[in-house]
């Protein structure tokens, strides 16, 4: 199957117009020594029916959350996705458009991004947000570059309760850019404030935390902001946007840059991507924001509309002086999030957040009753995730759960050596009491 329209006679006509007899002549500028003299070694092309069958059968070799009851989170979450999202995303005027560089024929994308920026600002309590970043991890790295540029201080302190993969991404970017990353340890599942205070100094440009943190625990953001401000370090907080239905907006807590992963806002799990990074900050730092930003403009007839603005920050103008090389955003994912936020609205986002809280609380109580299982870090308040410690190996438990149609939580030993036999469990509004009770019974050994 190919998607080209040319008939044989059209090819001939076109070649004649160019004044050649074969398309081979169009490739004569490629020197023989680099010409591929054989066919590409790929499977032969398929018709649409066979293609659908083959790719579908490959997809069936995966487990998925419509088939299993999942308690897995750790940065990728199952939340309710209203049906309207996919229907609207499939409007092909949205998904087959390029970046809105011609505003007269891109008002749809531009307005949707403006609404996205507004939604992120409302949730986070910040002044400005950009049109989105690749994902939460790269948004964190970009925020760090932003903060070190702003403060002209090249060291950054990051809490070890930040998602381990995010920290790894941050380290990669920091190495490239020559930024020094210091990790501050955790204690009882939260950022250890005493160590943080000790590690802070005048040389630190930014303090990075995640709230709720990787273990689901709610950090003492206020205290951390206070400590950081004492050394004129900027504070970067990575948030779960859903949690902001019940948790105070970071903007109200003195945070300088809020970043996060927007996958929870109506974006499917898709085995880890595409997701949606977001970044929001105070007005005074707007010209340090990376990536695209949409603003209101007036046209020649006096109409209000939307354009990409403040473009002098970006790579296509600033080239080697740009603080980021980012070019694209995740426009379609941002659109999904905007549709999600519009559908849920101010009451819905709160209700989702509250259900996460209550159901997580219930699950903690139920699982804590299992013999040989205890809730780790029991003093901590948690949002939609928590850690349990088990006498049994996590792998063994998860195998048992899977046989009963349950995908268990994350084995924390994978990321934290000291947390072998610890499982990170996620409970969102999509889990019912019955499913949580089933998790307990199967865990206990019921067949």
């Amino acid at each position, binding site marked *: 199957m190919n998607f080209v329209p040319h008939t044989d006679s059209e090819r001939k006509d076109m070649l004649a117009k160019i004044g050649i007899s074969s398309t081979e002549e169009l490739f004569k500028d490629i020197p023989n020594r680099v010409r591929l003299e054989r066919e590409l070694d790929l499977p032969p092309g398929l018709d649409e029916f066979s293609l659908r069958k083959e790719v579908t059968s490959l997809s069936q070799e995966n487990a998925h959350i419509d088939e299993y009851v999942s308690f897995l989170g750790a940065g990728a979450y199952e939340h309710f996705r209203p049906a309207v999202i996919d229907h609207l995303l499939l409007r092909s005027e949205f998904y087959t458009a390029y970046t809105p560089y011609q505003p007269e024929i891109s008002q749809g994308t531009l307005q949707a991004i403006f609404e996205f920026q507004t939604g992120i600002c409302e949730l986070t309590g910040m002044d400005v947000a950009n049109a989105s970043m690749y994902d939460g991890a790269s948004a964190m790295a970009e925020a760090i570059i932003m903060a070190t540029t702003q403060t002209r201080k090249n060291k950054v302190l990051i809490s070890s309760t930040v998602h381990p993969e995010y920290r790894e991404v941050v380290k990669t970017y920091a190495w490239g850019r020559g930024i020094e990353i210091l990790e501050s340890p955790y204690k009882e599942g939260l950022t250890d404030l005493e160590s943080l205070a000790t590690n802070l100094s005048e040389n630190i440009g930014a303090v990075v935390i995640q709230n709720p943190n990787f273990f689901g625990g709610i950090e003492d953001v206020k205290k951390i902001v206070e400590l950081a401000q004492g050394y004129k370090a900027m504070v970067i907080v990575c948030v779960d946007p859903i949690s902001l239905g019940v948790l105070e907006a970071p903007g109200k807590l003195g945070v300088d840059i809020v970043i996060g992963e927007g996958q929870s806002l109506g974006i499917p799990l898709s085995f880890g991507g595409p997701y949606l990074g977001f970044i929001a900050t105070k007005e005074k730092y707007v*010209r340090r924001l990376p990536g695209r930003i949409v603003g209101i403009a007036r046209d020649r007839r006096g109409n209000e509309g939307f354009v990409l603005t403040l473009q*002098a920050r970006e790579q296509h*103008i600033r080239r080697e002086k740009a603080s980021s090389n980012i070019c694209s955003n995740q426009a379609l994912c941002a659109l999904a999030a905007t549709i999600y936020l519009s559908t849920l609205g101010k009451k819905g986002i709160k209700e989702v957040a509250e259900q996460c809280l209550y159901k997580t609380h219930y699950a903690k109580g139920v699982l804590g009753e299992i013999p040989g299982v205890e809730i780790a870090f029991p003093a901590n308040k948690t949002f939609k995730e928590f850690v349990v410690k088990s006498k049994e190996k996590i792998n063994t438990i998860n195998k048992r759960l899977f046989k009963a149609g349950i995908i268990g939580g994350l084995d924390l030993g994978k990321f934290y050596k000291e947390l072998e036999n610890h499982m990170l469990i996620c409970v969102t509004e999509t889990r019912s009491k019955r499913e949580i009770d089933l998790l307990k019974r199967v865990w206990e050994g019921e067949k």
Partner: protein
Amino acid sequence: MYPKNLKYTKEHEWVNLETKKIGITHYAQEALGDVVFVELPEIGVEFEAGDSIGVVESVKAVSDIYSPVSGKVVAVNEDLLDSPELINQDPYGKGWILEMEITGGEEELLDAEAYQRLIEEE
């Protein structure tokens, strides 16, 4: 075209050695187009001639401002924060960018005639 009482740099800044004011030239503002933002230095900071002391942004371009002389910043034109277009409208007057206490580097500057020649070559 280029005021005789000013001195110029190859990077298209002007400096008035009497008022100690510094800005960018008519040529520079025209090349940039509509100026939308100016990043001003902090008062009290010292610079060597040739250091980047600020940034001028237009819709489609961005340019560093290089210090024409060595010295210390004593004043900046805060009107530019609200009305950066002053640089387009009146580059040698209301569009001045900063004022310096000059400690050296004047000898490298171009006079109006030499600057004019430079532009014609470009």
